[in-house]
């Protein structure tokens, strides 16, 4: 192919300066207090410098001074869009270290709530992603209409809208209300209907296709090298889902598929999340069918939970990818060391590699497709 000289005659005499555009921490597209310093040459981004840390609250250090049950609240505050998933991870870690076996009923409740939480998180993604794409809030309103049903459902169970603090080592804090199954079926029905609306609005829209298809392609090797996980990794075609590859809790009892992409582009990332919601619905329906009666807390739980000496790395599939807790226990009632592996932190580290050379408008979409939660990034 012949090389074309794109320089404009006389351009060498003109002094052109790349400007720095400071996107964030107060910017509608950065989803929180994320900041990126873009170097732009006209519309093209030549460098991205992500700046994080505005939301740092010491969420890994603080639990080292807390009782094991108090730590659960801090996990709600890492990934504030997938609280049940994060709680699930920590609670499972403690259970594995101590050898507590949670009751059957509580395991089912945990899975149902975690999957519903995955749906709310993905709904949030789809809404915000549409806004990044430029839809005037319609995708956001559609997504939030359905998310609200689930939020209300969570509120009925836990008494909280956001920081649920409901899972406990050994089970759940209290049993679910009596009408749990009917309400859950109602909510699932709403989600199914809402998903069709979202598909109609976004996934078959020519403008969305023109914007997203082929944008920021990531290969499997790159994705693994960068430490991507979750929908970003599955978009590249690798069917890696911890619920399947390393089943925790009771996920091996359910029949569900892992949607994978082919291109690794932004469109695949969006479509995978839309499809994952359907798979979550499948899991919830199976779990509701099998939901056993019985106690929701293991027997013989002490008032003060002392975890025997040992260390553990427990990981779960959160909506954003691999959410992990590394914990060292020394036999006291407090963790000696407590480290969180945030999925969106690792995914965000690939932002520069994914977005340099793209247009300014596309960098916003690429950032949106990572689906970051700043509380989880900064912790």
């Amino acid at each position, binding site marked *: 192919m012949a090389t074309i000289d*794109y320089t404009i005659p006389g351009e060498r005499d003109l002094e052109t300066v790349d400007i720095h555009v400071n996107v964030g921490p107060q910017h509608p597209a950065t989803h929180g207090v994320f900041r990126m310093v873009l170097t732009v040459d006209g519309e093209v981004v030549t460098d991205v410098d992500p700046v994080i840390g505005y939301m740092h609250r010491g969420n890994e250090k603080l639990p080292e001074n807390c009782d094991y049950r108090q730590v659960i609240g801090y996990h709600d505050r890492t990934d504030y869009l997938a609280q049940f998933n994060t709680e699930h991870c920590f609670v499972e870690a403690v259970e594995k270290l101590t050898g507590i076996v949670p009751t059957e009923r509580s395991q089912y409740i945990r899975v149902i709530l975690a999957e519903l939480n995955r749906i709310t998180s993905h709904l949030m993604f789809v809404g915000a992603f549409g806004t990044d794409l*430029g839809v005037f*809030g*319609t995708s956001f309103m559609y997504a939030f209409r359905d998310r609200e049903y689930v939020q209300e459902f969570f509120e009925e169970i836990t008494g909280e809208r956001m920081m649920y603090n409901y899972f406990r080592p050994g089970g759940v804090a209290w049993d679910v209300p009596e009408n749990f199954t009917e309400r859950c079926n109602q909510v699932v029905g709403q989600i199914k209907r809402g998903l069709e609306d979202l598909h109609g609005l*976004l996934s078959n829209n020519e403008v969305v296709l023109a914007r997203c298809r082929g944008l920021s392609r990531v290969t499997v090797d790159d994705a693994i090298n960068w430490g991507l996980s979750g929908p970003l990794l599955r978009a590249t075609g690798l069917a890696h889902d911890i619920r399947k590859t390393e089943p925790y809790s009771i996920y091996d009892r359910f029949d569900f598929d892992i949607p994978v992409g082919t291109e690794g582009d932004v469109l695949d990332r969006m479509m995978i999340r839309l499809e994952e919601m359907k798979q979550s619905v499948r899991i919830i329906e199976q779990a509701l069918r099998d939901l056993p009666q019985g106690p929701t807390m293991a027997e013989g739980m002490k008032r003060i939970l002392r975890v025997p000496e040992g260390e553990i790395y427990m990981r779960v599939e959160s909506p954003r990818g691999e959410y992990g807790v590394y914990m060292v226990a020394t036999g006291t009632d407090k963790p000696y060391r407590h480290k969180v592996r945030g999925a969106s932190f690792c995914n965000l580290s690939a932002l520069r590699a994914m977005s340099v050379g793209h*247009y300014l408008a596309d960098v916003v979409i690429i950032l949106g497709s990572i689906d970051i939660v700043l509380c989880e990034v900064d912790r």
Partner: protein
Amino acid sequence: MILQIAGNVWADAAVRMLIVSLLVPVGVIMLTWVERKVIGRLQQRLGPMRVGPYGLLQGVADTIKLITKEDVRPNTADRWTFELAVFVIVVPVFMAAVALPFTADIFVRNMALGLFYILAVSGLGIVGFVMAGWGSDNKYALLGGVRAGAQLISYEIPLILAAVAVAMLGQSLNLYTLVALQDDTPFIAYQPLAFIIFAIAGLAELYRQPFDIPVAESEVVGGPSVEYSGIRWSMFQMAEFVSLVLISVLASLIFLGGWIWPFSADNAGWLQALLMAIKTTMFILFFMWMRATLPRLRIDQLMALCWQILLPFAFLQIIINGLVLVYDWPDYTLTILSGAAAIAMGTLVYQTARRTGVLYQAPGIAQRVGSVL
């Protein structure tokens, strides 16, 4: 038919202009309410409900708020460029309103070259956008201003060519003549291609989705208007909404038969106004609908669409018109040819959007950036 309000011609024009400049802001206040209500409905919410019945007075409350707000000018802004930019944006819109008749009786000035004048004047506002972008000393505003400029040169040519096609058919640039010619068939029947091009380019002119690139909220945070506050900011809004009405009225006049079609030229005044109101509202609702449902294109995709698809097809429409007029073919050949071309264009756009991904590495950038990791 044409009434004269005051005795002297100039006094008459002055009175009419005064009425326009008083009515337009009121109309804009109502239109913001309509837009918020319509988009609210499309998004399954109520829209404004608190101020007055059904939130009807919301616009009034907003206006009071905007007028009493502090007029902030950034310290480093270029003072006169910054402060004058809003007037450069608003004045051309009112200038265009001067030449635009609503019905046979409701107008300011009947210009022989009305269509030409309106298209020429409505392009002036861009100077204000670039001034605002430059004068604000803000990089978002600068990017927005440059985008506005790039967008204007892209959509303006197909827009004008689509209007030229209509002028060819009517052999006139006078809007009265053009409307009078549509007493049994509106021009949309003869020029479906030109109509589609006009509607798409009109969306771009209004900076509405999918072409709200210069004011993109999630990218450049409002673009040129980002540093403006209070009444100066509301001028941007006013210009946007007046242009919305202008484009809608213009499209109704030159494509949908204005105040005549589907009735006769000697309609009663109220019927003319009603016809125009219905047609204009249709366009306004269409533009609002687009805003509520479509995402945004990228600037290079807009330019590709305008230069590579709309412009050649606009020329094609003109060639079709020329052939039909020169060889004196029957009218229905116009409909057939233009309709076929419109279908071809739609297919092309549809296929392009679905097939291609994007050209997303700008030429020359790979060498400059080098290896990313």
